[in-house]
């Protein structure tokens, strides 16, 4: 009798084709795309061999969009239409974005997220970011010669829910199947850990262009476990430029500057900063539009002293993360440095002094995040056989809570909780016959709601008339593997169920995304229907493949009737996939998903039982 081969649950039984998956580091200053080729992660360069894509987007009249070096070259001559460091505005309102006063844009205060008026119309940071992602997607498709099946996009670990959601939306808008949002320091830890086969507790110090993250991870064979994360999503290399810029304005006694001069001097400040990494003194010269010439020089001592407070500001989150993890400096086996801003000698010195050891710099701090993201994308795409892959356990960076009486924030899911996580909380009415309740979801560590970030407001209506305090409203907060929050609510006593969709406070509802998608397709002269059809087909084929392999492994978990129901849904989908009716395909996909729900649960139960039995099925 032939021996049956049983593969691991979740893994395809049939050898599937290699899926093209990429990792994208969507940075404040530069962005990169990487993939795993012949087992090794590589950054994909542009046609001129340049690995970085400056995160700069220029909107011209007549809908012309330039991204990267071309846009960067025009930032001083066309500052209003050339958007740099857009990441700082993702998911942010006008009042909580930093350096607004020194940014040469026409801001439009929109509910939740700030927008920018350009020659091509009003643009949201999501749209601007999607232009960067689109260029990277095209670069990858050209270089890999095929359609990208999925992408991992990295975000600062300290990004809140609104910033994460905005990033994911930008990915969708750029036509990417976003497999996962991955925290930047975690991505760096993957690249570093696998490269160096490291074990033990490591800290990742990630000072990017606009954000600072500090994550502490436990690395052990096959598992990357984030123990604590902390940071400042409004602190980065940009702030060092800004200090230098202010120093120059004061030193040269300049009058208030126009947009062009401001951008020019900021560029010069950045150049001087970079020069100081390798030299004791840097020139800082610029010819202003008035004809006046700024001719300054700054030595590294002065630069260190004007940026000392910024460097110190990074150490607060470092201490906090250590406390959260209940660890001491001596417990840390190594500190991985990530982000271009960690090249500054004063940063290296401060970190070395704090941790009492030399930081680790053996991977390029500009590339390490993209490389780690590519490795994770490769695993998520299922390109690595079980045993060679790894498990990643990440956490939520900021506590989630709801507003209670008196404007206080009640924490529901505390920071550093491993995700996915869920928590249900019961609420009740305080008036007789109260038929509705409104909820305000916030994120942050402070006690007052006004000091936290407002994520969403929603209302639960249709509570049947009851005495005050009799209703039992159960609100469930679910944080998924991307760190994104989903809230649902239902009233329990009466049996009436009401679920709610949470509209993000930053004001980008699904309808907005759809509109933007439509706009961008019109712009690209693509057919909306064709796009939808191709998306549903990909979905459908993926689901068929997954279902077939699940049936091949675990058909025995089903009785004849259940098997028939699934087979019918499979046949229906197969038939429709040959046609061109996008809606019918979508419905068939949904039907198959419904038909396999119970089956999926049973397979998962079985997986857990096998894990506990301690026996490797493959070794039987």
């Amino acid at each position, binding site marked *: 009798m032939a021996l049956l081969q049983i593969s691991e*649950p*979740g893994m395809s039984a049939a050898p599937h084709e290699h899926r093209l998956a990429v990792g994208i580091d969507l940075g404040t200053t530069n962005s990169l795309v990487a993939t795993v080729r012949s087992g090794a992660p590589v950054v994909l360069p542009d046609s001129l061999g340049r690995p970085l894509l400056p995160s700069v987007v220029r909107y011209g009249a007549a809908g012309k969009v330039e991204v990267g070096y071309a846009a960067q070259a025009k930032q001083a001559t066309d500052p209003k239409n050339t958007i740099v460091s857009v990441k700082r505005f993702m998911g942010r309102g006008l009042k909580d974005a930093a350096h607004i006063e020194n940014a040469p844009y026409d801001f439009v205060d929109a509910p939740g997220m700030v927008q920018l008026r350009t020659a091509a119309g009003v643009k949201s940071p999501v749209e601007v970011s999607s232009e960067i992602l689109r260029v990277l997607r095209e670069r990858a498709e050209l270089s890999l010669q095929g359609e990208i099946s*999925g992408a991992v996009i990295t975000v600062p670990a300290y990004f809140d829910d609104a910033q994460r959601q905005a990033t994911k939306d930008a990915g969708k808008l750029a036509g990417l199947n976003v497999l996962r949002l991955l925290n930047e320091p975690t991505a760096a830890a993957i690249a570093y850990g696998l490269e160096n086969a490291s074990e033990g507790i490591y800290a990742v110090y990630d000072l990017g262009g606009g954000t600072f993250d500090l994550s502490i991870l436990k690395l052990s064979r096959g598992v990357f476990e984030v123990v604590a994360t902390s940071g400042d999503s409004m602190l980065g290399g940009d702030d060092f430029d800004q200090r230098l810029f202010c120093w120059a304005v004061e030193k040269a006694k300049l009058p208030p500057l126009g947009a062009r001069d401001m951008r020019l001097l900021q560029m010069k400040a950045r150049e001087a900063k970079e020069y100081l990494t390798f030299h004791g003194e840097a020139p800082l010269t610029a010819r202003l539009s008035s004809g006046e010439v700024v001719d300054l020089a700054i030595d590294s001592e002065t630069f260190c002293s004007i940026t000392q407070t910024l460097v110190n500001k990074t150490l607060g989150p470092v201490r*906090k993360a250590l406390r959260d993890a209940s660890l001491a400096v001596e417990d840390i086996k190594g500190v991985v440095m990530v982000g271009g801003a960690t090249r500054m000698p004063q940063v290296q010195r401060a970190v070395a002094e704090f941790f009492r050891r030399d930081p680790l710099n053996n991977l390029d701090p500009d590339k390490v995040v993209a490389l780690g993201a590519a490795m994770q994308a490769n695993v998520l795409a299922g390109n690595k056989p079980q045993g060679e892959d790894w498990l990643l356990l990440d956490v939520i960076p900021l506590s989630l809570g709801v507003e209670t009486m008196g404007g206080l924030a009640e924490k529901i899911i505390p920071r550093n909780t*491993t995700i*996915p996580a869920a928590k249900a909380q019961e609420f009740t009415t305080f008036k007789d016959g109260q038929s509705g309740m409104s909820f305000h979801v916030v994120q942050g560590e402070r006690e007052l709601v006004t000091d936290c970030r407002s994520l969403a407001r929603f209302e639960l209506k249709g509570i049947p008339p009851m005495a005050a305090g009799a209703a039992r409203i159960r609100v469930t907060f679910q944080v998924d593997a991307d760190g994104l929050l989903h809230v649902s609510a239902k009233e329990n006593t009466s049996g009436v169920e009401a679920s709610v969709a949470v509209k993000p406070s930053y004001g980008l509802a699904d309808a907005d995304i759809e509109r933007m998608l439509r706009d961008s397709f019109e712009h690209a002269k693509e057919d909306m229907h064709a796009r939808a059809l191709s998306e549903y087909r990909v979905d459908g084929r993926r689901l068929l493949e*997954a279902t077939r392999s699940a049936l091949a492994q675990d058909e025995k978990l089903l009785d004849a009737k259940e098997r028939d129901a699934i087979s019918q849904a499979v046949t229906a989908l197969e038939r429709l996939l040959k046609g061109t009716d996008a809606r019918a395909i979508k419905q068939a996909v949904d039907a198959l998903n419904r038909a*396999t729900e119970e089956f999926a649960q049973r397979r998962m139960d079985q997986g857990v039982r096998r*894990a506990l039995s301690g026996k490797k099925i493959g070794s039987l």
Partner: protein
Amino acid sequence: MQSHFELFGLDPAFGLDKEMLEKAYRDIQSRVHPDRFAHAGDAERRASMQWTTRVNEAFRTLKDPVQRAKHILELHGVDVAFETNTQMPTDFLLRQLELREELEAAVQKKDAALLDALRRALAGERLLLEAEIGESIDKRRDYPGAAGPVRKLMFLDRLNAEIDSAYEEIE
């Protein structure tokens, strides 16, 4: 509903083997985690998220001494509504007052070393309480009797959290 211990195939003891717990947690996670199902259908992805959420919750509960003890007491029908029932022995409350005064003094002097010392003292007291809880639950099977020390441990946890925010205050 299965208890958190059953989920990991462990005996319901307060003094549990941390390594066994971690191993079981990782073994299950490696089967159910959403990263394993990124390309699967909606039904499997949803089931995976639900399972992972449940496993994370169970792990978090069992890792933490207070939560673990409360879970065991709950399994044995002991009322764990400690928050509303705060009668505590006088000597314990006096000691708490003393510790809080020390904390305030440290904050006023902006002295991180004093906070460190306070944390160490607290860690010692926690260990004693944990031993007492283990004794009551695992040896004597006296579940109602464990409620007292569990409540004390909760007090110390809260103080610990206050010390943590004090660090932020003086920084």
